[in-house]
């Protein structure tokens, strides 16, 4: 797979987003500050995914 790096980072983003949402919305888990950390982490991996995907395309254009 040509864009495996970006795909794997993208999966991390999806999982972290889902869990951040869960931590924020399910009071039983009692982890509101956990939501902030995992949510910002999800944003970080989204940025990494986009950068990696865009960078990976540069080679294809050669």
């Amino acid at each position, binding site marked *: *797979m*040509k*864009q*495996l*790096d970006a795909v*794997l*980072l993208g*999966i*991390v983003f999806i*999982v*972290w987003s889902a*869990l*951040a949402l869960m*931590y924020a919305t399910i009071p*039983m*888990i*009692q*982890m*509101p*500050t*956990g939501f*902030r*950390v*995992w949510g*910002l*982490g999800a944003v*970080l*991996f989204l940025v*990494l995914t986009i*950068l*990696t995907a*865009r*960078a*990976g395309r*540069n*080679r*294809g*254009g*050669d």
Partner: protein
Amino acid sequence: MTERKLTDGAKSLSSADKKLLLAFFSVSILALALGGRRATKTTAGRTGLFAIATEATYKMLGLHGVTIFFYWLYFVQAGFVLLLTAVYTEGAGAVAWRPVAWLGFAAMLAGLVSSEWSYTGGTTLLYDGNPSLLNDDPSQGRFFYLGYVLLSAGLALVATSAIATALRPKFQGIIESWSSISFAAVAWSGLLIVAAIAGANAFLPPLFWTLGLRESVAGYAMSWSVLFHNMHYLPLMATVVLWYVLMENVTGVKSIFGPRFSKIVFAIYLIVVPPTSLYHMFLEPDLAEAVRVVGSLLSLFIAVPTILVFVIIVASLEAHARAQGGRGLFGWIKLLPWRNPVMAAVGMATVNLALGGVFSLVLIQEKLAVLLSDTFFVPGYFHFLTVGAVSLTFIATLITVIPSLTGHLCWRPGVLARLPYILTIGLALFGVGGIAAGYHGVPRRIFDLSYHVDEPLEHIDAPFVWGTLMGVVGAGSMLMTVVLVTYIYALLRMLFSQNRKIGVDVSDLHVVSWSGSAAAGARAWVGPLSVFTMVAAMYAFTALSFEILQNVPILVEAGAH
């Protein structure tokens, strides 16, 4: 001829990059020396070798945790992510955004100074920095929290530089995809930035409180738990990434499962981090029972990627060794280059990780966590991980990397190759004594164990076995100290001395060249067998823990009569 990418790649870096990396590694060794000295004093005080005033022991324990857990482990990781992205990313060849990395170094160094300085005043916080202990005088914690905030900022900057290093050749169109090590280093750097976010989330509120800029802090335990989860998971991920690197460097063996599978496994590390964080909340009294059960089940996943990496490495080594004539279930292991100090260290690190892993999985089950978390069981098991697996692997990497960066010779490899075994014996004494002490109720953070109740109807002394077990812990600690002092001396010699008469060029250390020699269809049973043994041991020790702890009230009753 074995391709020695780590050694050769480190040697070929520019002098500017070498200076940057050596700055990180030098401070990490300083932190290891400071933290190790305090560990020895703490254990000596705890085991009664000499008397220390109670407040001094808490300061010593706090400084030990801060210096080792936050500064030794993170200065050295910062250097490693920069090194690995520069060496293992094809077309990189140099650290990108070097000034950003230097800025990160400066912030981390300022953090170390601030943390150390905080203990010269009246601060008696342990490494978890519980702000409620400062209610009488919050200002005493200013430098403590400032140190952690600076460390967090520094880590974010260094990790950004590492990610830029890996991305640059992609943007330049030199490469299409990363090597598995580059990908792992990017994932590792990403998690370092998340840890930095968690650090800011946990420590900025108490810092502002100690500066008088806000009211007291609520919910600190939860913020700390999230940070702590990241901070103790990161070194574990770093350890297995470095096993990959080091085994390739001393045997030439790459994964027989291919780089794609390795990348997937490293991605799994990131995927299991957030859902497994729940077990840190088990001691919170208000946590719902359903969450405790789910958290217990999820916590078991934390070991999955580590076990997968272990199996990949062992199976790859076994398949190659069999192609070299290795026979018998375990006979092939003898073919590995054990005279190389790196091989010996990684070998013992896997043993220690297995031992620590078994007991950690016992502890993170919610029924046992409540009973054992405040006993000496905890330091008993986690030193297998922090010292025996993580620090030993980091030191092994430094033994390879520092001579490659300085051009000096490796100090007495014959001596260094024996140290991991002595360290493991010391750890076994410390760990077995400590775990047994925990089962018998020795408290984790109370130093004076000589309590005595002498009332008309009640005469109670601390159980005799406490003193005996803590004596075993002390003996193990002394052995570990001797080994760590020798390692630190060796690393300093490799930093500052040519070692011409007693050293060996790092390229001439004992290695084997098995690259590309794996036989098709070769048997590789030891990895899966080890995992099976580990799972069985975990089951057995969990059952044993329940048996012992169910009998505790009966023992107390019996003792009372």
